[in-house]
């Protein structure tokens, strides 16, 4: 049995189980069956051997696997005990294991239910919006399994005081685990929220998480989004975060990748209305054989939108960092301000970085800039620190920490920032 027939048999078990999403799933299955998993010759996947990641024998959850609730407490991010927790297990939403504190402001339910109740119209309009930007088999494959997903709504004008943290658990104890979480988020007009996603591979085996999260940010809303990837080096990931921004909405995304096997993050900001603002920050701190590929898109469709983007990478050992930043400025999107920067430091002789800015501008009154660098640690700075008695190892750690610090500084939530700081300090083994 090859990967596709493995997936096919899982899909066959799903058929007929969903009422409200069956049409969506079928349509996506058709797309996937037609084009399959992208090969290296696919322009958008040229640095990622994604085909090799899919295995002939993968465990795919098609029903509600019981999640051991006590496991969650071991993985709660320090200092976020009072946050709203949403649990996914093997790619499927676990309502009973999730914990929502601010129920008057926040609705969390299964996507299948949302597609048949008062939120059906929203689901109909927004589910699958990312596909236009990623017309590939990976996105479609997630869609084919969408009924296991979750729907999140931050009600109009609600300010969610504690972050909403989504824990994705993948159980790989019985072999390769393939999970496909699907999330649809509605941040209604004037609402404010911080959404965090983090991933746990427990069981010690190989895994692949193929996720799609689609967010629609309403008028004057403020959305902060943090994606933290620190699974082991057997964990593969392909994820799309797709944000549809309405008028004057403000989105701020930070993507941190510290570990993994093959990791692909797509982040799309679609500026659908005027005066939308988006900030995109990323840090990939890689070692071993990790390959992390960040593809970002800012699609300016209307005038007076602004976007800022800064991604930084540190590659050690044989690791590879890839950055691809697309900025579209459509004909109507006059007065767009769009800035992009990608900076990379290579530590290992075998490490590599690929960076590609891709700007397509069709309007004539815009300000856009981009820049990218790939280099080694600054020798003069290193010598300066050593000349003050700081060991070479600590001097390097200080400089790398400093390099990473402007991305970390973007994380507003103190507990989460401190936690990630600790992970990075440990990793750089900075000795006091």
């Amino acid at each position: 049995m090859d990967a596709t027939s493995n997936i096919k048999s899982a899909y066959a078990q799903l058929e007929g189980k969903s009422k409200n999403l069956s049409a969506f799933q079928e349509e996506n299955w058709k797309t996937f069956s037609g084009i399959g998993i992208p090969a290296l010759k696919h322009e958008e996947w040229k640095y990622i051997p994604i085909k090799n990641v899919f295995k002939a024998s993968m465990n795919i959850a098609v029903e509600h696997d019981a999640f051991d609730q006590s496991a969650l407490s071991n993985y709660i991010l320090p200092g976020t005990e009072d946050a709203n927790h949403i649990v996914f297990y093997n790619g499927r939403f676990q309502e009973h294991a999730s914990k929502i504190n601010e129920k008057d402001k926040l609705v969390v339910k299964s996507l299948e239910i949302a597609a048949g109740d008062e939120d059906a119209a929203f689901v109909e309009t927004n589910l699958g919006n990312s596909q236009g930007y990623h017309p590939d088999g990976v996105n479609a494959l997630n869609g084919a399994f969408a009924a296991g997903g979750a729907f999140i709504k931050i009600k109009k004008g609600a300010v969610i005081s504690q972050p909403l943290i989504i824990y994705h658990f993948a159980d790989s104890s019985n072999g390769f685990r393939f999970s496909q979480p699907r999330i649809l988020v509605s941040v209604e007009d004037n609402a404010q929220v911080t959404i965090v996603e983090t991933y746990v591979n427990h069981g010690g085996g190989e895994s692949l998480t193929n996720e799609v999260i689609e967010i629609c940010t309403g008028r004057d809303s403020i959305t902060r989004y943090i994606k933290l990837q620190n699974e082991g080096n057997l964990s593969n990931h392909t994820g799309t975060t797709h944000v549809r921004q309405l008028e004057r909405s403000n989105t701020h995304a930070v993507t941190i990748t510290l570990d993994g096997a093959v990791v692909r993050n797509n982040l799309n900001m679609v500026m659908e209305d005027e005066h939308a603002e988006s900030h995109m920050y990323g840090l990939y701190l890689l070692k071993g054989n990790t390959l992390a590929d960040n593809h970002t898109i800012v699609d300016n469709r209307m005038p007076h939108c602004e976007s800022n983007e800064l991604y930084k990478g540190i590659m050690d050992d044989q690791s590879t960092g890839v950055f691809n930043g697309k900025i579209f400025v459509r004909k109507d999107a006059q007065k767009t301000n769009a800035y992009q920067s990608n900076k990379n430091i290579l530590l290992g002789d075998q490490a590599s970085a690929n960076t590609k800015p891709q700007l397509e501008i069709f309007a004539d009154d815009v300000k856009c800039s981009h820049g990218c660098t790939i280099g080694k640690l600054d020798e003069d700075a290193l010598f300066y620190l050593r000349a003050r008695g700081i060991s070479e190892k600590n001097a390097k750690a200080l400089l790398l920490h400093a390099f990473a610090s402007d991305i970390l500084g973007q994380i507003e939530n103190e507990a989460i920032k401190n936690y990630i700081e600790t992970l990075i300090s440990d990793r750089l083994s900075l000795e006091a």
Partner: protein
Amino acid sequence: MLKIENLQARIEEKEILKGINLDIKPGEVHAIMGPNGSGKSTLASVLAGREDYEVTGGSVDFLGKDLLELSPEDRAKEGLFLAFQYPVEIPGVSTTNFMKTALNEKRKYQGLDPLDAAQFLKLMKEKMKLVQIDQALLSRSLNEGFSGGEKKRNEIFQMAMLEPKLAILDETDSGLDIDALRIVANGVNQLRSKDNAFLVVTHYQRLLEYIVPDYVHVLYKGRIVKSGTKELALELEERGYDFIKEEVDQAIA
């Protein structure tokens, strides 16, 4: 304290130091002067351990240790300090954090306990006064956006914090106006004691009006060609380097 014998060094294929001899004892201030390109800054860099330079001969003894065998960080921990001609800007690292790391690494090397936050702050406040440096400046990224004078004052502040046995000041006067020069010189003078020594590298005599040396050496074409007392500096100021160049060039011819 520092004994340099026949030190030779090159960068890539270019010989820069061609046999330097120098003996510095505790409590002394030595000035190294010389025209541009004579090797002054190279000497400072070689002593601090910059790896761009290859030492091709000679020896340097620092407090009984073979200095050339030590890494830059161990030289610093043994009590050597280089005030840089061009202090490096390091975004994201504050002077405070940097100094705390440096000081505590040195203390660890000496077998002392690290300073806690309160002790460190107290020491810092004390040393800040010496060079009239503002705490706000020290909380900022190291040297980033500092004026020339601020950078040099920061160097002397770091020196005061680390209390070296031998401090090498590499053209610390360059780019300083007279007020900043006085502040820097005043800081250095307050740190002078019978136990430590200074090697002041400079192109002009100006700095030596404030930091009065015990000995003045003239470096030219990679060798010390003349040594004397502070009067030699005044003579150089008056006559320029040409008379020395002529003397040396004639001797070679």
